[in-house]
Each structure stands twice: as structure tokens, then as C-alpha cells.
């Protein structure tokens, strides 16, 4: 990041409207012509409890949450005001201010809502002293009072946004527009008034900080602001998915909700069912009957899908499953990201896995790889899993809407028409040869039929079966069928290599050192790599988004070209490093790990620090990460 940037943090209690306020704030910044990125932090609690959202904005590309922040809007936790003294909530009004001071950058600006806070609490914080030390500029404002005076108390969010605008020299017209678009009647009027008055009041105050809103070029009207979950859902819809079945579990619920709200508009069906076993089973049933279908869950729910997933593999029923990871084991940390389900996703279910796994690295890949997952699943008759995490799920980014303007497709893949079935091979039982040992086109895909088609009858079974689908334990047949099912993975690898490799290379090609990363942390790593190179290091990065079949050749070549590679991932055991070693079978001594598993995503500076201490052979200074040296070191 070369240019000037704003990282605005709004903090309050869950349920205080932090989320919607920050979304509107981000949208307003986007409309003013800036590039934006949001990062959400929230507890597993519906109301009350410390929550914050960061909005990072710059005239340059923003790729991650960034390091720390430079503007804090602390609204006070209104749900902390518990009528029952000493009860569970405790007295936490001050938390949005007190808990957020450690990452505030030097020269940063603080606005807090003094209307919610006791003077004693503020005194306990030593705010003045600390502000002097860090050159912070503190503005206690009675946002609650302003909101009350011109509207209602809940509108203190609007007052806070207006104060931000006044202090940073921002144009409030974008906020006005958003209020007009999203509200109506008295509520709209009141909010506009609060916005206006708060802006005027704060503008008249003396300011002594340098921070201003980054200068923007003209707004590009084609920008849209959305999350990884939006992109996954839209990818599915564009690729002709018209059936979803699910059971709520954070963070998967997001995709499920977006799909459920939109599918009926596109003539599709959404089913919320009794559990995750049913959810995956329904998707399989719909697909068997000829519809492009998906399901998904998060860790524990995905565990329940293990058996139907195996059924889809054995019956060669196409289906797409989404796994939105959160920290485990078991229910783990429901609202915190982690990349700890990798091995679960790759290998769960009995027998040898024949499935495809994609792990999008950013919003664009969420869309692209979901489309690809459907295409591969239906062309090759294999389940495909899109694995992402709470981080990609929640973060909003702007992207050009033209990116989504692709040809929609309802291509059912390798399903035959009735005319084609009439020509196809039939077993003496009268059944269509659904599972031929050697399909006519020389591929490993034996074409399928769909119930209701004339003369396409076959039996799908989770037991091993012969060419027409009858249960068979014949040893020769077993080997034929296993080899064909597993052989599809090689075909898919070739297909992806030729048409749609999703690996991302970053940094100078001839760099000495490498950082290998998968999934949602790719952009954070790329930002760190730029900084490392500015600091005089010679580093490049490879972001891997196709996990199974593994891009053995691409990764091998890249690993060949570096002296050492640091594998960055958000889990405690280095699962992706393990996968890489297993799949490639060499390079063990080149690979070390930088791991973080405390529930908070990496910030770019942490990767810089981790990398530097790893090449200098020093202990990691930060205690929120773990360094694991290469095997054989």
C-alpha cells in the first residue's frame, strides 16, 4: 500500500446495528470512488458482547483488512446496560472503547459516545496519557444526545457516521443517498436530520488531527460491493443450480440464506430440512432426477454429510457441497474463522475419495470456482466441494459488475437425451449401461440417464456394482469400477491445467524465497510480499485454490524455483503443508509453516514478521502465531 488509507473501526455491542452501519459506510466510500474492504469481528452471541467491523478504504487496491486501524468510532454497548446489577452481562458499556485501543495506530482518531459512558470508567482508561504517548486525537461526543434530540436514540449510528464525515472532510451526500434508498417516511426524515445536525455540530468543533479521507478519483458506477458468500451463491445460480437443501449452521447459513431468498425468483427450489444428512441426501436425490443441486454446511454439519458424500461418489451422482469453515474441533468457535477442516473435507467418508475440492482465494474465485465446481461435477459425475471460511464469508469488497456478466448455463453435463439413450449400450436385463467399464469415448465418464427417460433404467447403489448398476462383488469388476472412478481425477487435473488453473502467482518470478498459501489468506499474503520486497527481501508467493486434484506440476515447478517456502495457514497443524508433501512426495526440507489459530485472521504485518524471523532463524516475537520449521531442519 503506497497511497494514503483510512481504516475505520466501528465498535459496539452485537445487535447495535454495527453491521448495517458499516455496510452503508463501506458502500458510501465505494460510491465516492474508493476501493474498500471490510473485516467483521463478532462474538457468538446475538445481542450484547463486543463486536467491531473495520472498513479499509484507499485510492489503491485494498486486499486485506490491513494492519491495525486509524479511526475508532466507539459507540458504547447499549445492550450492556443490564437492569439486573451484576448479572451475566456485567457492566460493559465502556468495552467498545477500552477493548479497541491496542491496535489503534499512532496519530489515530478516536470518537466515542460519551452519552453512554460514566466519567469514572473513562478515567480508569488513562485516555489522556495514552493519547499523548501515541499522538491520538480524542473526540468525546454526545452522539446519543444528538440522536435523541433530532430523531431517536438508536440513530446514534447515523450521528457517529456524520461525525466521522465531519472530522475527515467527507462529503455526506453519499450517506444521504443511502438513507433515502434504504428507509422511508419518518424514519428516513429523522435519520437525515440526525446526519445533518451531527455533521454541522462536529464541523464547528476544533480539530487537531491530520487524518483525512483518501482522495478519490471519479466513482466508477459499475462497482458492486459484495461478500464471498454472495459470489458463491451467484456463481451457483449462473451455472444453472436450481435446487438447494440445507440446515442452518454458521457460517454456512450465509450462502444458504442468499440462495433461499433468490432461488424462487429464478424458478428454483430451496429446502430447509431436518438435519445435514437429509440436506446432502436431498441434493443427491434432486441431482439423480436431473437437476443441478447443491447443499453445504460448516464443520459439524459437514461431518454429518460424510455418508451421503460417499454415496454420491459411489453412485457417481453429481452434487456441489459448500463447506464454510469455522474454528473447531467440535462446535469450536462458531463465529471465528479457521482453515482447520481441510483434511476433513479432503478425506471424510469411507473408502478412497473421488471428489473435487476447490478453495477460492478471493471474491472472484468464489464466483469462478463455484461455477467450475458445477461444471466439473456434472461433466464428470463426481461430487465437488467448495471450501471457504468465515473470513471470506463475511468480508465485503468492491468489484466491477462486468465481472459477473458471464453467459449463464444450464448445461446438465454428461446426461444423455432419449435419442442418445436409444443408441446406447443396454444390458440383457433391459437396463441401460450406466456404469460401463470402458466408456465409448475413451474417457472415464460413463454417460447417465435420468428417471422418466425412456429405456434409461439403471440402478444407482452405494454398494459396488456392475455396469448396469446391479450389486456385484466380482473382483475384476471392482477393480474396473474403482479405477474408472479414481481415473476421473486425472482427467479433471488435465482439464483444469488446460482450461482453468486457479493458482495465483505473485511477486518477482526470480525471487529466492517463497510463501505458499491457500484459501482466504492469499491476498493478505500478497500484500505482505509486496512489503517484504520493498524492505529489500526477495520473495514471491503462490496461492493455491485447486486442492483436489492437487496441482502437482504447478506447485512442484514453483517449489523447484525457490530456496525455501513458508506455508501460511490458519490452523494449528499445518494441514496444507501436509497435503503438499503428501501429493508431491518431496520438498519436505524446503517447507516450514507459519500458523495462526486464535480465531483472528492474519494481518499483513504478522506475515512480514513471521517471514523475517523465519529467515533470520529467530524466535517469533508475536505469541499469537506459531512457527514450525521444515522437517529435517
Amino acid at each position, binding site marked *: 500500500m503506497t497511497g494514503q488509507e483510512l481504516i475505520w473501526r466501528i465498535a459496539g455491542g452485537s445487535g447495535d446495528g454495527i453491521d448495517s452501519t458499516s455496510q452503508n459506510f463501506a458502500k458510501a466510500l465505494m460510491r465516492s470512488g474508493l476501493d474498500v474492504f471490510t473485516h467483521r469481528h463478532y462474538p457468538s452471541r446475538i445481542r450484547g458482547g463486543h463486536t467491531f467491523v473495520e472498513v479499509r478504504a484507499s485510492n489503491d487496491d485494498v486486499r486485506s483488512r490491513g494492519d491495525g486501524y486509524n479511526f475508532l468510532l466507539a459507540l458504547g454497548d447499549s445492550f450492556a446496560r443490564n437492569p439486573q446489577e451484576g448479572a451475566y452481562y456485567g457492566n460493559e458499556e465502556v468495552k467498545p472503547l477500552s477493548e479497541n485501543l491496542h491496535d489503534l495506530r499512532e496519530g489515530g482518531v478516536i470518537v466515542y459516545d460519551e452519552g453512554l459512558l460514566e466519567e469514572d470508567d473513562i478515567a480508569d482508561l488513562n485516555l489522556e496519557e495514552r493519547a499523548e504517548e501515541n499522538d491520538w486525537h480524542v473526540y468525546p461526543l454526545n452522539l446519543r444526545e444528538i440522536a435523541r434530540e433530532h430523531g431517536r436514540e438508536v440513530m446514534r449510528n447515523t450521528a457517529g457516521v456524520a461525525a466521522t464525515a465531519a472530522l475527515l472532510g467527507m462529503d455526506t451526500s453519499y450517506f444521504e443517498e443511502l438513507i433515502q434508498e434504504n428507509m422511508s417516511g419518518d424514519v428516513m426524515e429523522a435519520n437525515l436530520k440526525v446526519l445533518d445536525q451531527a455533521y454541522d455540530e462536529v464541523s464547528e468543533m476544533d480539530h487537531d488531527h491530520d487524518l483525512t479521507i483518501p482522495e478519490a478519483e471519479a466513482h466508477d458506477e459499475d462497482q458492486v460491493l459484495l461478500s464471498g458468500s454472495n459470489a458463491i451463491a451467484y456463481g451457483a445460480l449462473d451455472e444453472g443450480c436450481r435446487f438447494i437443501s440445507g440446515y442452518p449452521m454458521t457460517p454456512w447459513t450465509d450462502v444458504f440464506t442468499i440462495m433461499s431468498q433468490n432461488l424462487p425468483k429464478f424458478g428454483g427450489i430451496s429446502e430447509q*430440512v431436518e438435519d445435514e444428512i437429509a440436506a446432502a*441426501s436431498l441434493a443427491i*436425490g434432486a441431482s439423480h432426477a436431473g437437476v443441478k443441486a447443491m447443499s453445504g454446511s460448516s464443520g459439524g454439519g459437514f461431518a454429518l454429510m460424510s*455418508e451421503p458424500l460417499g454415496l454420491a461418489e459411489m453412485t457417481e451422482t453429481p452434487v456441489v457441497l459448500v463447506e464454510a469453515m469455522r474454528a473447531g474441533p467440535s462446535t469450536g468457535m462458531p463465529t471465528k474463522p479457521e482453515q482447520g477442516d481441510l483434511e476433513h473435507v479432503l478425506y471424510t467418508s469411507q473408502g478412497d475419495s473421488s471428489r473435487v475440492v476447490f478453495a477460492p482465494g478471493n471474491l472472484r474465485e468464489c464466483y469462478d470456482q463455484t461455477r467450475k465446481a458445477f461444471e466439473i461435477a456434472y461433466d464428470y459425475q463426481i461430487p465437488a466441494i467448495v471450501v471457504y471460511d468465515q473470513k471470506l464469508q463475511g468480508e465485503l469488497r468492491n468489484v466491477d459488475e462486468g465481472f459477473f456478466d458471464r453467459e449463464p448455463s*444450464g448445461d446438465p453435463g454428461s446426461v444423455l437425451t432419449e435419442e442418445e439413450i436409444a443408441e446406447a449400450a443396454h444390458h440383457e*436385463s433391459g437396463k441401460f449401461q450406466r456404469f460401463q467399464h470402458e466408456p465409448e469415448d475413451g474417457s472415464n465418464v460413463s454417460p447417465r440417464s435420468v*428417471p422418466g427417460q425412456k429405456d434409461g433404467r439403471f440402478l444407482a447403489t*452405494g454398494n459396488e456394482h456392475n455396469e448396469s448398476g446391479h*450389486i456385484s462383488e466380482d473382483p475384476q469388476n471392482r477393480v474396473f469400477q474403482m479405477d474408472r472412478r479414481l481415473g476421473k481425477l486425472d482427467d479433471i487435473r488435465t482439464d483444469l491445467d488446460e482450461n482453468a488453473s486457479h493458482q495465483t502467482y505473485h511477486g518477482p518470478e526470480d525471487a529466492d524465497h517463497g510463501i505458499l498459501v491457500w484459501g482466504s489468506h492469499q491476498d493478505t499474503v500478497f500484500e505482505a510480499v509486496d512489503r517484504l520486497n520493498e524492505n529489500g527481501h526477495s520473495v514471491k508467493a503462490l496461492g493455491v485454490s485447486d486442492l483436489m486434484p492437487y496441482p502437482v506440476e504447478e506447485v512442484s515447478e514453483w517449489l523447484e524455483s525457490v530456496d525455501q517456502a513458508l506455508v501460511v495457514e490458519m490452523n494449528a497443524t499445518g494441514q496444507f503443508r501436509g497435503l503438499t508433501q503428501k501429493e508431491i512426495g518431496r520438498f519436505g526440507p524446503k517447507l516450514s509453516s507459519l500458523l495462526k489459530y486464535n480465531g483472528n485472521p492474519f494481518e499483513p504485518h504478522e506475515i512480514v514478521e513471521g517471514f523475517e524471523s523465519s529467515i533470520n532463524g529467530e524466535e517469533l516475537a508475536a505469541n499469537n502465531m506459531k512457527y514450525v520449521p521444515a522437517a529435517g531442519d
Partner: protein
Amino acid sequence: MSAFSAIGEERETDRDEFTPGIEPQATWCPGCGDFGVLKALKQAMPMVGKNPDEVALFTGIGCSGKLNSYFESYGFHTIHGRELPVARAAKLANPELEVIAAGGDGDNYGIGGNHFIHTARENHDMVSIVFNNEIFGLTKGQTSPTSPKGHKSKTQPSGSAKSPIRPLSLSLTAGASYVARTAAVNPNQAKEILAEAIEHDGFAHVDFLTQCPTWNKDAKQYVPYTDIQQSDEYDHDVSDRQEAAEIMYETESKLYEGEVLTGRYYVDEDRPSYQEEKSATGEMPDEPLAERYFDEDAEWERTADELLDYHK
């Protein structure tokens, strides 16, 4: 030509069409009640005017799950207890298919009990045939949810401490709109009931008593059954829920003491099927969803045109 020209094809069919052209590997023991279900099902097909290509049969795991091997149609032998969720999605995807689900008492009252309750509750338009032999057959004779209290097996050597489940009461309470019981030894009643269940518009639960001579020699499947529709003693109004509940309770209490009642217990013609309910909320497409993928003129809308404005 339609992509699904077998559906609704108007021609006479024959029960032999539902027999696979080759003899499947023999998997059922001689004298097994499952043969009775197979026979009744084959006989019911011509009665309801179906051909093998428009029938999708979903089974669970167990001896009952082998039904697909003996019955010629589109088949899906799923996993233990899961045939109902797989089946009901196929019906939603293509409501014109004749969807039949079949599983054991282990499948439907045990491991898949949750699915059974919810499929009945939602009143999906399908038949669920439960092979009730009061035992786990395929895993060699363990106690099942319908085994009587005190039943001894290798895994319950001192006799089961559990009272058996009451399948009829269960599905009635859950919301099934057709509940009947028949038995492998009553072939005439069985085929009539299956034909009726298939034609019923909603979830039709048929608890099918099947003897397992291999593992459950003591069970009462051999006693003569009383058909409640044929017996003068019972003047039963099948549309009366209360009456149905009472008679079910009575027979479920006496099942292990000798008297076994069979027949239609409850038929609710008025309750809309799940598809109809879903259509009413505007969440069910008018045309069978599966047709779309074969229709060259189908429009596949872009999300970009519809949804992105919201994100601007």
C-alpha cells in the same frame, strides 16, 4: 420428443415388465416375507397404469433394500435410513415421477426415524413402504425398534428393556395423510393397498408386515390377520383421525399378544401435499424443474441482470 417420454405413457403394462431380465443374485432367504412385498408391488403397477421407466424406487439398506435388485424400474439403493430424503427431493425435482420409497423397520423407525417423521409431517407425495419384520435382518438378527419388549438377541442377551415403537401412531401424529398396514401373507389386500397408496396424493405410509423366518421365528407374522375393512366387528371411518388413533393404539398394544389388524387406518383426502403447499407459498416452479435442463429454449437468467443493483 419430450425429455421424459416414458412419463404418462398410455399403454397397458404387465407385472412381468417389472421383473428384471436377468435373475439377480439371490439375496433373500427362502420363505422371506420380502417376496410378498415384491409381488404386491409388481401387481400394483399395472393397476395404477405405470411403466418401469416412470417409476423411481428408492430403498434403504438391509434385506429390504435389496428390493431394487428384484424390481425393474429406475432405482436408487441409498444408505441406511436415508431413502426418504433422497426420494422426496427427486419428487420435488420432477413431480411427474412416480416416487416410491422402501426400507426396513431399522431404516425408517430407527436410524432414519428423523427423516420418517419429517417426510410424514411435510406430507410429501410418495409411498413409503416399511418392511416390518421386527428384526434387523441383514446384520443377522439384532433387536430392531419394532421388536417386542423382552426380545432376546445376541446384542440384547437378557431381553430388550425397550417397548417397541408404534409406527402407525407415529406416522399419524407426524402428519401422514394415508396410513395403512398390510402383510406379506395377505397378497390380495397388499396389492390393493399399495395401488391405493400410490394413487394417494400425499405421504402414504404402508407398514408392511414381513416375516423373517431366518432370524425371527417367534414373531407373530404367521397368525391370520384381521382385515378391518372386511370385518363386521370394525365399522371404521378412515377419515376420522380420532378413531384411527384409537384403533391404531389398540392394535399396536395387542400386536404381540396375537390379534393383528390390517387395512386402511387413516386416509385424509383433503390435506394438500407438500408440493401443493409449496406452490401456494410461491416456492415451487410450475413446470417440473428437471425438464428445464433438456429444454433448448429454457432461459437461464443472469444474476448480473437481476441481483447486482442491490450491491451498487
